[in-house]
Structure formats: C-alpha cells, structure tokens
C-alpha cells in the first residue's frame, strides 16, 4: 500500500475535530476547534453554519502544520445528523441551522402523525415520526418563517455545507438522507408521499450519492481559507452515526457495536431493514445503495455521567485536584466499592426525555430505591448501571435481527474498564475495544475518504486496520443479577413516567416531542 495522508473532519455538536491519518490508520496529527450551540426555550437549538466553516478552516491549518500539504490525498467528513441548514440560490445560509437537538417542531410532528399511519411511515423511512428529524423542522420553517422558507433553495446537513464550501458542489449522502424522515429507505429516494403531505417540493432537497463519492475538489477560494491545495479531492463522507459504525468494525449483522459517548447507541450493518414491532429502534441507510444500519439510540448516556460529575460529585472533583487525576477516576473508584445492584438504588438516565426504547419526551432523571443505609458510592454506581440497563433494553430489541455474540465498544466512555465491565454484565455479552475508540467518527470518515480515491478496495479494510485492544467477559453471577433487575428497572421507568409528565406540565415548560 502506497502511503497517503487522509484529512478527516468530524463536525460534532461542541466543535470540529480534524485528524490526519496515514493509510494504515495511524494518526499523524489532530486538532479540535470548539464552537457553541445556542439553547433556547421551546426546545430551540441552533448553530451558525459559518462557525462550522471557521472551525474547519482553523483546524485544517493547525492539523497541517509541519506537514507537506502535497502528500495529502483526500479530505473526508463525518458530521452531526438530522439538522436543517438552509441555503439560498447563491449558496449562502438563509438563517442559523436547526441542529439535531432542536425539538421545537412538536406540532408539526403531531400533524404528520395525524396524516399518515405511523406503521406505514416507519416502514417507508425506517424511523419513527419525531420532531427531532428534518421533516418536521422544515415544515416548522414553512409554517412559521415563510420568508426564510421561500428563500431556501436547498437544505443540507452540516458536513454537506462544508463540502459545498470546499468544492462548490451541493449534494448529500445516503446515510444523512436516511436521517431526514423524508427518505424512502428501501427505494433510496425522497419519499413523494411524505413530501406531498407536507407540501414540500423535492427541489429543496439535495441530490443523494454514496458516502464514498468524490464530489469535487478544493476550490481556489477554499484553498486560501483552509491552507489545502486547490484540486485536492473531497469525499462527501457520512453522518457521524454511520462513520462510527465503520470504526465499530461492523460489516455484517453478525458484528454489532456500541457507541458510548455523550449519547449512546447500538447498531450494526445489515442487508435488511429491521422493523421492531414496538418501534423501539430505527434504521439508517449505510454508505452505499445496498446496506442498512438498524440502530437504537439513547439521548443522555455520557452526558448523564457528566451531569453527575458536575452537579453531585463536587467533593470528588476537589479530591481529584489533590490527587492530580480526573474527577471521573475518583467517582469510578467509589462506584466500584458499591455492590452490584447499587444497594437497591436505581437510576433512570432520561435527562432529556428518551429516544430508544421509550420515545418519551417527558421522561426525566430519577433516583429511586433510596434508603437510610444507601451511601454515596451506591449513587455513583447506580448511574453507570442505569445507562447500562437502558442500553440492555435497546440491545434486547435489536437482538431479534442480529446474531452478534460480542459488542465492540467505541466512544469516550469505552476507555473505562469499570464501565466496560458493567456493560458486559448488564448486557450479558462479551465487550471488546479496538485501537480507534476515541477517534471513531474521524476514523470512519477517513476510511470513506480512502475508499473514495481508491486507496482501499472495500470498507472491509477495517478488518485489517482495527485491532482488538481489550476484552471484557460478563461475570455470570452479575449478569444473572442484572437479568432479574431489568424488569424492575423497566417498571421503575413506567411507574415514574406519568408523574414526570405531570411535573413537566406543572412547570409549564414547553416540553417537546423528541
């Protein structure tokens, strides 16, 4: 294999991460440039697409420092999904982008639900109807900001906008299209049925290409802004959920993975769409026109653990300073001294409502089972167990369509052996990690870039590039315990759901449908 350098960008919610890889997947350099999101009442979450572009320009220059830019063969992308970025005819943003976390379009989603049978919709798109998706967001703009809507010539995802800025080409890929609630997942075309219900013209939607497509080359203007050479090939890449799938090493339905970062999901590549009877899970299109990625995702996983760290573990944070370690280390040390089952405490991690498995926008965080002999250690352990048990429910839903006997765990939370053991025990499955745990989304994007320019023959090259680093087996006694605990956890959610909803109403906070 002739050595090439691949520049991979991941456009996250908190910032842009740029990584330069060699062909063998080793990292040459990386740079993270943060940007902000504006969170407003009514579930409104927006970002300025110019901030994305500025961040990409900064990180690209930083990551290229000291390298010969001529050796760079390709630029490729992974990005946050399910947003709406509106471009006018001239290709300029009409307004700020509504990002994935924006759930203002509750009424629009409800309208859609009235107009089409939900099972039919699930069957067409592979997804539930929800205000989290572009369909409802776009419909909201049409209903509430007619001027902006009328000015909009195309809507794009985050990565698509940056690719447009680099190349002048306006396209999107299968994976992002499948996260729109507007895409027929099997026909791989925009759904005329849904578009006609919403009265939205197909012209506003971009052309869809495979994720490995070289859509153009870096323009002179873009070269000046980024430090890239004009003419460098640009690959469209994929939504971050799909980029992570590549790093999770899944190439068939036999290989499932768990991404556990701020949010968490379980998915796997499959030749078939998986329609769950209870609609707990959903499906993406994969990087080409053949495969799918059945998936179940929870809203707040690592975020819930961060919340505990920031809001409750104040003592541990100051202890960590004295010990010269990170607060999470102290928290885990304490959590590890609590018994399996956290001495009867159950933690429900639904801080921002919940997607899989409950799809309940009113769901809340809960500590239940507190007694006078419950200790602080028990609270900490319960948090890890709560996220793990919610993932177990997702896994149980997905297991109907995958024979996988192990989970590859990626994302920041996969770095903790304590957490890996809890996942292994709670899901009763072997958990392995590989050498791209922390840079999973960038790694996936890099593979797509390499495929685009022919450095790799097949996405299965990950079989060579990903090497197993750890292996965690379930402890049979613990797994048996969690089997018994699971229905109690599930029932704890169901028992708390009505009052959490009532409390939301009491607060008169506009809680939106997720």
């Amino acid at each position, binding site marked *: 294999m002739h050595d090439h350098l691949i520049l991979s960008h991941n456009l996250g919610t908190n910032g842009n991460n740029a990584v330069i890889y060699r062909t063998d997947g080793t990292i040459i350099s990386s740079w993270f440039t943060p940007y902000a999101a504006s969170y407003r009442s009514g579930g409104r979450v927006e970002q300025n697409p110019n901030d994305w572009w500025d961040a990409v320009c900064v990180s690209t220059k930083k990551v290229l420092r000291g390298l010969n830019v001529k050796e760079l063969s390709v630029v490729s992308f992974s990005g946050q999904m399910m947003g709406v970025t509106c471009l006018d005819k001239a290709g300029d943003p009409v307004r700020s982008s509504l990002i994935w976390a924006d759930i203002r379009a509750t009424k629009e989603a409800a309208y859609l639900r009235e107009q089409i049978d939900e099972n039919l919709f699930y069957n067409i798109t592979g997804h539930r109807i929800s205000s989290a998706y572009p369909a409802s967001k776009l419909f909201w703009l049409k209903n509430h900001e007619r001027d902006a809507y009328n000015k909009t010539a195309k809507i794009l995802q985050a990565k698509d906008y940056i690719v447009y800025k680099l190349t002048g080409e306006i396209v999107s890929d299968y994976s992002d299209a499948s996260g729109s609630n507007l895409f027929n997942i099997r026909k791989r075309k925009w759904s005329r049925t849904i578009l006609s219900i919403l009265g939205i013209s197909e012209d506003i939607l971009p052309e869809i290409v495979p994720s490995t497509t070289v859509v153009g080359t870096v323009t002179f203007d873009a070269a000046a802004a980024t430090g890239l050479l004009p003419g460098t090939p640009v690959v469209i890449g994929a939504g971050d959920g799909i980029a992570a799938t590549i790093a999770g090493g899944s190439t068939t339905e036999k290989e499932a993975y768990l991404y556990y970062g701020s949010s968490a999901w379980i998915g796997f590549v499959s030749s078939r769409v998986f329609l769950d009877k209870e609609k707990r899970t959903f499906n993406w299109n994969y990087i080409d026109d053949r495969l799918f990625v059945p998936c179940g995702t929870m809203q707040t996983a690592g975020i819930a653990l961060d919340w505990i760290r920031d809001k*409750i573990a104040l003592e541990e944070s100051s202890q960590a300073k004295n010990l010269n370690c990170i607060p999470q280390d102290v928290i885990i040390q304490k959590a590890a001294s609590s018994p399996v089952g956290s001495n009867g405490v159950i933690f429900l991690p639904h801080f921002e409502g919940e997607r899989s498995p409950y799809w309940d926008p009113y769901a809340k965080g809960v500590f239940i089972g507190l007694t*006078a002999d419950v200790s602080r250690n028990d609270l900490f352990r319960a948090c890890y167990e709560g996220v793990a048990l919610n993932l177990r429910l997702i896994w149980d839903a997905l297991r109907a369509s995958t024979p996988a006997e192990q989970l590859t765990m990626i994302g920041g939370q996969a770095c903790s052996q304590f957490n890996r053991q809890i996942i292994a025990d709670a899901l009763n499955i072997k958990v392995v990690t590989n050498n791209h745990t922390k840079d999973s989304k960038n790694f996936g994007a890099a593979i797509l870039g390499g495929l685009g320019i022919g450095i790799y023959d097949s996405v299965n090259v990950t079989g060579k590039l990903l090497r197993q680093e750890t292996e965690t087996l379930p402890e049979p006694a613990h797994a048996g315990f969690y089997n018994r605990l699971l229905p109690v956890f599930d029932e704890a959610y169901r028992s708390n759901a009505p009052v959490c909803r009532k409390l939301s109403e009491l607060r008169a906070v506009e809680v939106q449908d997720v």
Partner: protein
Amino acid sequence: MAKYVLAHDLGTSGNKATLFDENGRLVASAVSSYAMEVFNGNWAEQDPAVWWNAVCESSRSVLEKIDRKELAAVAFSAQMMGCLVVDRNGRPLHKALLYCDQRSEKQIARLVARTGFETMYRITGHRPSASYSLSKLLWIRDNLPDVFEKTAKMLQAKDYMNFLLTGTMVTDYNDASGTNAFDLHTFTWSDEIIGKAGISRSLFPDAVPSSRVIGTVTPWAGAQTGIPAGVTVVAGSGDGGCASVGAGSVAEYRPYCYLGSSSWVSIASKTILDDPDMIGFTWAHPVNGLYQPCATMQTAGSSISWFAETFLGRSDGKTLDTVNHMAAQSPAGANGVTFLPYLLGERSPWWDTNARGVFLGMSLNTGFNDFCRALFEGIAMNLYLNFRPMQKLATEKYLRLIGGGALNTLLVQTIADVFGCELLIPEFLTEATSMGAAALAGIGAGVYGGFDIVESMNPGSRKISPDMKNHELYCKKIESFKKAYTDLKGWFSSGKEY
C-alpha cells in the same frame, strides 16, 4: 413554701432530670445516659434497673442545685408503647420490650384476624401493630409461658418508675392509649380487644388522668434518689403527650409540629379525629378530657442528615448550613425535582414499610441546589398530607413548631409556605417533653394554676409568615407528590424482589 418541680424525661438513650421553679423557669438539668439493646434484627430491650439507676443519678445531680426541701412534686415523661411485665410484688420478670421492638408481628396478625383492623383502629385510635404493648405482651404469653404465668401487671416505663417511687402501680390515660388495648371512647381498657386476645383484664393497671397525684415518695425511694420522702408524685404521661403540653398544644384545636429525626403533626381536640383514610392516630391527651390526634413521618431531620452525607458527601459541622444555603438558591418548586422522603418506609400518611426514597424529575438543567430544595419540600409536603385531616379543626391560625429542625430556617419557611399558615417557634425547642412533665407535676401539686404555665415556660419567640404565592404553587405540586407515591406504590412492593 415548696416551689420547685422535678421533671424526668426517660427516653431510650438516657434520662434527663430538669428542675423548674414556681414561675416555670428552667433552673437546672442533668442527663444520665444508657444504651438500648438491639438484637435479632428488630428486637429491642432495656433493663428497667438501668432506668432506675439513671433516675437516681440524675435526680441527685440536679437536686444539688437547690434546697431540696423546696421540691414540691415529681412527674415523668417517658418512652411509650413498651411492655414491662412484673409479678405481684412489682418485680420485673423480664427486660422491657421497647416501642421499636418488632418481634411480635405474628401475634398482632392473629389478633387482627380475630378483631378486624378497622375495629381496633376505631376502638383504640391506633392501627393495630407490633409496635404497641399488647402485641408484645402476647408474644411473651406465646413464647415465655413461665414468665407470663407469673405476670401480674404490664407497665410502661414511667409507671414502673412511679411504682418504685411511691409503691403505687397505675398508668395514665396517655400511656394507656399507646397499648392498642385501651378504649379511647370510654377511657377504660377494652374488654372486646382484651377478650379477643384471650388474656385477663387484670394484667392492665388502673388508668388515671395524667395530672393526678398518685402518691408520695417513700423513704426507701427517697434514700435512693435523694428526693425527700413525702414529695408528691404525679402520674405524668408518655413523651408524645408531654411534648404536646410543652409545645403549648394544651387547649382545644391548637396544632403543633415536632421536627426532629422523625416528625409529627398533632392537635388537641374534644373528639376523636374523623380520619377515614386512617392516616393518623389518636392518643388520650395529658389534659384530661382532650384527645391528641397525631400523624408521624419516619424520616424528617434524618433525611436531611442522610442527604448531606450521601449527596453532598461531606459531614463536617457546616453541612446543614451548606444544604440550607444551596436550597435557598433554587426557586420554590425546585425546578420540578421532587423528593419522596421514605428512606425507612413510611408511617403516616401511607403506612407502607416497602416505600423507598425517590428523587424524580431531573433534567440536564437540574442543579444541586434543586436537590436541596426538593429535599425540604418533600419533607414539608409529606407533613402537610399528614396535617390535612386535622387542618379543618384548627382554630388557631398558626402552627407551633418544636424540635431541633425548627432551627433550620429554610425548612421552616418551606413548611410555612406548604402549609400556607403562620408558624410560631417557642424559645425552647428540645425541652418540650420535660416541660410537659413539669407542667403535669406542678399542676397536680398545685404549684401551677393550670396549663397556661406553658406560655411562661416556653414563650413564643419567632413568627414565620408564609409566602402565599409559593403556597399556591405547592398546592399544585403536592398533587404531583401524592401521585408520585400512588404511582410508585406497586413498584415499592414488588421492586425489591430481584
């Protein structure tokens, strides 16, 4: 002219002797500590000889402060709901089984099967339970037949102390109403219940009003305690009753709240409270002819200290201040966070040993301050559910508040806001039981003219006004609070089996 009264408060951790003068002013006090013997999980006993030693020691200590010739009377406030069996000569046949001893679950279940739960509640004013004396006496009959055969009387702690002081073996209405065997309507032992229990009525001592003089200190007792022989001994009452008196709840419909590790709300009334949900229970009031409806929650102050240790993770001297300060940063309603304070199960209002503590309603915006506020709100709302059946009776517009928890300013304000009424906090917060006993002693012996003496013993020192806007909000939140328990009840009872 004799002008001092000696009040004893015989608790489970020690005996406190306190002297008051003729104006009701506290002159001196002394504590003599002892331990509770807990074993077999939920068995709890004390040796009555230990009580007596503590009474002797603390009496001697406190009497050094005055000319003991000026001592007019003695009375006890003491732990209730116990079971001390004595023979014909008044000699203890076994250690006393204490109120928290739960060994007799089977005995009470069998009795309930024969008499009916509601019937027992209606007659005695209390839910039948292994906590009360009758059930414990039946355990002794069933398990220690030799002891039971010799048993002449079953006494409460203070009754036995009174017997040692005077040679007279009686109890008072208030303590009698904590046995599960006393007919609250007639102020006599219930033939129906005692009959169904299959034991003899003669096992129960005569019950008299709490302020009745029952005798004088014998020369033997005088030598032991240092109390001059011949000093008047008044019946006294249980500590729950004495607390009511000390809190100033001595006239009809005067409500108060005790805020300690546990907490109760109570009122004085001429009738037994109509409480169809059986949330609360009713004692005979130490003021003769009155009743004392009451409802108790298990973990009030102890929820706060548990929270400080568990959630705050610190237990230095400042933790409670910290919790208080942080709670004040969160708005009323705690941003939707709700706390169910059932860390030891719950008595009133749910009577559910399976209940557990819960924090619910957290979102990413929830801060630690909201937990602190929710903690106080949960305690206050639970107390209010307990108070609601009594509220319609209350003629006073304010609630008296005693116990160490009354020092917690934000908790107190939260209670005022949740209850929507003014709170009156007296000067002494933790002396109420001793003051109750002193009032009974002084009234019985004629040193004090009547129960009004409590106003000078423990005058109101602070008034807390409710924020009625917050009250409106809490009126809604309390419905969610109730719903939370009702919805989770099933989970509590099934959720432990895994």
